[in-house]
């Protein structure tokens, strides 16, 4: 019984994806849809192979912007998280600013950023940061607040200082939430870089897509989309792996006590 459900879980996502591709392929062929309108998946795949070096060239730029933005947002989130935990009165002051920063339409900022910061990498990194730091910060703050108050008073009764309590109790307890935030950010991060490249850049997957879209090379646009999807998934997987290493006590494979 358990075995069959496991197989079901493993096959279901793959088969539903395959079904969509088959319908898409069939629809394009039966209706003879022109290439500039919608290429068949088989065509998109052969295009990926054909323009592979070009895709690699632009991906490296996008990945670099994403990596910088992502790392900086982790650092920013940790700083904000620690600071707000230490000076709890700041929480009320900073929270609205954090939320408002997320309500600004991303596309507007992507257009305005180059006016302020030029056409290089910086505005792209800033957009990635703006998208990524929020889920990480919010989850980290939630995690830091999640400590049991009895746990904290136990440490107080043992004479532990504030920093020791933070290091031993609060921060480790916040790590699982922190990684949830990290994974949400990882899914959006590459998309954020692509959006800012779309508005204006000299390199990168977003830039590549605008060029191809203008010449109706939809197969190349979709090829880039697939690369973006794959890279985003890999980034989430990377966060998973890091969590597995850094948060060994939360592994799903740990057997729970059965009392």
């Amino acid at each position, binding site marked *: 019984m358990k075995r069959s459900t496991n197989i079901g879980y493993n096959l279901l996502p793959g088969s539903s994806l395959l079904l969509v591709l088959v319908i898409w392929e069939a629809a394009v062929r039966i209706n003879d849809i022109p290439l500039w309108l919608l290429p068949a998946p088989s065509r998109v795949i052969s295009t990926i192979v054909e323009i592979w070096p070009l895709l690699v060239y632009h991906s490296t730029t996008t990945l670099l912007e994403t990596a910088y933005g992502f790392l900086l947002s982790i650092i920013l989130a940790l700083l904000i998280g620690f600071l707000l935990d230490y000076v709890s009165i700041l929480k009320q002051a900073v929270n609205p600013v954090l939320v408002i920063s997320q309500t600004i339409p991303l596309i507007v900022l992507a257009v305005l950023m180059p006016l302020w910061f030029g056409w290089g990498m910086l505005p792209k990194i800033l957009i990635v940061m703006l998208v990524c730091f929020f889920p990480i910060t919010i989850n980290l703050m939630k995690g830091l607040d999640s400590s049991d108050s009895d746990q904290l008073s136990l440490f107080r*009764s*043992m*004479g*532990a200082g504030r920093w020791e309590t933070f290091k031993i109790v609060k921060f*480790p*307890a916040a790590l699982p939430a922190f990684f949830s935030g990290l994974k949400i950010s990882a899914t959006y991060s590459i998309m954020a870089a692509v959006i800012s490249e779309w508005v204006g850049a000299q390199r990168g997957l977003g830039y590549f897509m605008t060029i191809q879209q203008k010449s109706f090379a939809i197969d190349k646009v979709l090829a880039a989309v697939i690369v973006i999807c794959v890279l985003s998934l890999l980034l989430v997987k990377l966060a998973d792996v890091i969590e597995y290493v850094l*948060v060994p006590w939360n592994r799903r494979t740990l057997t729970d*006590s059965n*009392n």
Partner: protein
Amino acid sequence: MTKIMVDKISKTLDGLYTLADISLTVGENEIVVVLGPSGCGKSTLLNIISGLITPDSGTIKIDGADYTGKTARVSYMQQKDLLLDSRSILDNVTIPLLLKGMTKNKAQAYARSHFTDFGLVGFEHYYPRQLSGGMRQRAALLRTYLFASDIMLLDEPFAALDAITRRKMHLWLLKLHKHYQSSILFVTHDIEEALLLADRVYILSSRPAVIRRELQLDQTAAFTPDMKMDLLAILEEESNDHF
């Protein structure tokens, strides 16, 4: 010799008059049980003795010195085991030693020497969530013991366990107490537990708590049903407002 002296403690907590003029003592190597109905302020009393909260009036003396409102002298175990999920059992129980400035190697060696008595051998590197409830409580008790072995405050430490495990823990605690010299102040609302463990029992009234009766128990004598009925009657009377 008197280890803990609670002298005329009163406390109003969140507008509720909780403790009214409580005085009690715990002698050296003695197990004293404070028995009282739920919500009568037993935990508040332990919080005051541990120094976590300050009483409105009265003093706490430990070994004759004033410890009112001062933490980090006695060890204190609460109902929940409060083990850290993020640390192995060994790393959990060594926390108090590390906080006192012992090096990691020394702390681990010292803690390991107690693992047999506390029934934790072989589980040093397990995480708390991999252990059963009884083992978790024993680990918490070891952490408590390693913080301050001479005086331990235990707040219904076995309340969350099933009946059989709880009884095993009682016997184990009594056995342990024979060769570890500790003064224990044990809080519970379970009469059986009180009679089984205590050298002396204080019975508290419902809020505001006063001491209704002090009972010296001779461990060798059997408890007469009359004694139990007596205690039950007091507890029942005091619990009435909470039904």
